């Protein structure tokens, strides 16, 4: 026991003390937040050059007045010229674009052109189109004898709520987001820390220290110590990320309150329905946060331990060749990727047979169950999945320890799957 502890300490400390650990741990959240800040900044300061648009309105669609909804677009009406005639002049008059509206049938508008030197930006184009459409709609309503107020009272825009039989309120949007985030996180954890374990084992084998260590500790102790040590590195990394992100989220608004306000308005004006963001924030609180956190920790640890032992076994049979590593690691990547695919299905249809199977099968359950958990999973399924994961972990560790024990001491020889299976079946 004491020896496992020493191994854990070494595995943990050598990794945490590395410069690269510090850099990735601190830089990753900064980069993520910086990235979002950059997106927000772009949205807020949409101060690309002002588009000055000359308008010839032969149809009198706008009735001579067109209020720009955007400070970056400025409309000016030009009279007494034709489309062909003014086409050559608008540049000289100081305009970027020239919008021409011919005499049109309001029910079949044709021939509306906007002239420009270079092609028109998509944002500007859609804004101009919206302005023209609004004007057309107003004209049509007028023709159909509908008042604008009337139209507003007819127009419908509802959201459907989904109360569950258990009395709780489901919140599909928030659930989808949280489910995706959780699933992707577990997927990344398995991949990143799993490969880290594999590389650690390979390092020991290739540098030939394995035999020295094995003459002091049992192979199983070494393997377990490594897996736990690296797992703790992962937990440390995640803890630092959570703290950093939390700090930045709380600190930033207090330092730059105006910035955040602007960002929020920008974000909400950008969203399809202005209330969506608020909706999500509200419904987040309706999710079982405690349960999700508990499950996240459970599936993080359970899934990691199970896959880490598989990765360790693969690391132990690789002799120098990197290419060999890729071939051998593929069968282990498969179920992780499969889990990811089932997860994407499970999010859209959380109670399908495939999703239920995926959330039970130990090799995929950490990813799939994490996604399903946001959609109210029956307790028996959750418990079964957890028990199966623990059993899976014990089974795979028992199996892989046998491969590891033999593989780590075999040098310069390519090991086939057949041999590995033979080692697995051998009694210890």
């Amino acid at each position, binding site marked *: 026991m004491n*020896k496992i502890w*020493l*191994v854990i300490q*070494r595995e943990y400390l*050598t990794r945490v003390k590395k410069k690269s650990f510090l850099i990735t741990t601190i830089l990753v959240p900064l980069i993520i937040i910086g990235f979002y800040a950059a997106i927000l900044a772009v949205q807020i300061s949409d101060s690309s050059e002002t588009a000055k648009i000359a308008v010839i309105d032969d149809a009198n669609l706008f009735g001579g007045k067109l209020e720009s909804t955007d400070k970056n677009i400025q409309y000016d009406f030009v009279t007494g010229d034709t489309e062909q005639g003014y086409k050559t002049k608008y540049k000289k008059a100081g305009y970027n674009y020239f919008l021409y509206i011919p005499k049109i049938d309001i029910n079949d508008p044709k021939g509306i052109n906007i002239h420009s030197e270079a092609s028109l930006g998509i944002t500007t184009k859609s804004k101009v189109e919206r302005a023209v459409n609004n004007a057309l709609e107003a004209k049509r309503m007028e023709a159909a004898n509908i008042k604008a107020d009337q139209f507003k009272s007819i127009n419908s825009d509802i959201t459907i709520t989904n109360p569950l039989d258990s009395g709780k309120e489901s919140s599909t949007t928030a659930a989808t987001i949280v489910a995706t985030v959780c699933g992707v996180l577990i997927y990344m954890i398995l991949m990143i820390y799993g490969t880290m374990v594999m590389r650690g084992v390979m*390092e*020991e084998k290739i*540098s*030939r*220290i*394995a*035999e*020295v*260590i*094995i*003459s*002091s*500790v*049992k192979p199983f102790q070494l393997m377990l110590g490594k897996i736990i040590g690296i797992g703790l590195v992962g937990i440390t990394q995640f803890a630092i990320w959570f703290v950093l992100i939390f700090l930045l989220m709380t600190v930033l608004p207090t330092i730059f309150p105006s910035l955040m306000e602007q960002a929020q308005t920008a974000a909400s004006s950008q969203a399809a329905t202005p209330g969506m963001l608020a909706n999500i924030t509200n419904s987040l609180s309706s999710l079982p946060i405690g349960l999700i956190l508990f499950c996240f920790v459970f599936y993080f640890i359970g899934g990691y331990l199970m896959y880490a032992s598989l990765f360790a076994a693969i690391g132990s049979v690789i002799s120098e060749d990197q290419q060999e590593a890729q071939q051998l690691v593929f069968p282990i990547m498969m179920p992780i990727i499969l889990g990811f695919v089932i997860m994407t299905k499970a999010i859209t249809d959380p109670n399908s047979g495939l999703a239920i199977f995926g959330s039970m099968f130990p090799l995929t359950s950490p990813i799939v169950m994490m996604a399903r958990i946001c959609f109210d999973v029956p307790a028996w399924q959750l418990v079964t999945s957890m028990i199966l994961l623990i059993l899976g972990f014990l089974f795979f560790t028992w199996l892989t320890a046998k491969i590891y024990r*033999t593989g780590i*001491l*075999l*040098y310069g*020889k390519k090991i086939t799957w057949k*041999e590995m299976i*033979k*080692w697995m079946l051998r009694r210890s």
Partner: protein
Amino acid sequence: MALLELHNLKKYYATQKAVDDISFSLEKGNIFGLLGPNGAGKTTLLRMITGIFFPDEGKIMFDGKEFDPLNDIVHIGYMPEERGLYKKMKIGEQALYLARLKGLSKADAMASIKEWFVKFEMQSWWNKKVEDLSKGMSQKLQFVTTVLHEPKLIILDEPFSGLDPVNSNLIKEEIYKLAKKGSTIIFSTHRMEQVEEICDHIILVNKGQKILDGTVPQVKQDFKENLFRIRFNNPILPEHLAIHLFEVKDKKEKELVIRRDKDFSNNDVLQYFINKGLAIESFNEILPSLNDIFIKLVEGTPAARQFQPVTA
């Protein structure tokens, strides 16, 4: 008293008998040479003694009790042929880690490391990494980490490979000192001149079996061919040699190498030359070198043994 006794040890792989019924016993404080051609089963044998492998059959007695790998490995220091250290780890930390894995407390480990680092002039290495060391330097470090915990049994597989003569001597001296202090040393190598120089006792294995076991002088006696070198003060004439007492193997102006017929004694030979009026300057027996014995015993073993698939 025997520190280590092996009784009918066997370890069979699917296609070969790596260790096939080997027994021997090692006295405390002695230096043993474990010899054998490549693929003779030395590494498998050593791995069983270090508790890495379990024997299929047979018994190992360690220090008077049945070998219990879990508790006894802290009394063993093993330097495998395939050297290995963590390349990215600092040297001081590495030595400390390996010592603590052998059950030393942190304080004891530090004290022992300091002592050895001073002895080998390695104090300035503490914060360096193994990847910065030359091959010889890491070899020294490897040796130090093997003996840090004052093991009762020290197993060294080719300890001098890659070392210059100065460092070789340094380590040789330490091996003698350790043996004097009571450690038993198993020394596995192909370098016969080193075995002759260092070892008290040798064991030769081939094809998984022990084919020779004894002290170095004893083995040499067993394999001697009654060869003698005689130097004279006056030139040898052809008529001196027409005799049934010996067979001439080599002849120079004033020197002869002869094989004495086993029915006669040294005195008979000397008497003969004295009677012939030759002045004898020296008379020495030529004992076979371990190298000769090794080659004689092992010659003809198919080298292909080492290429057979080892499916464990």
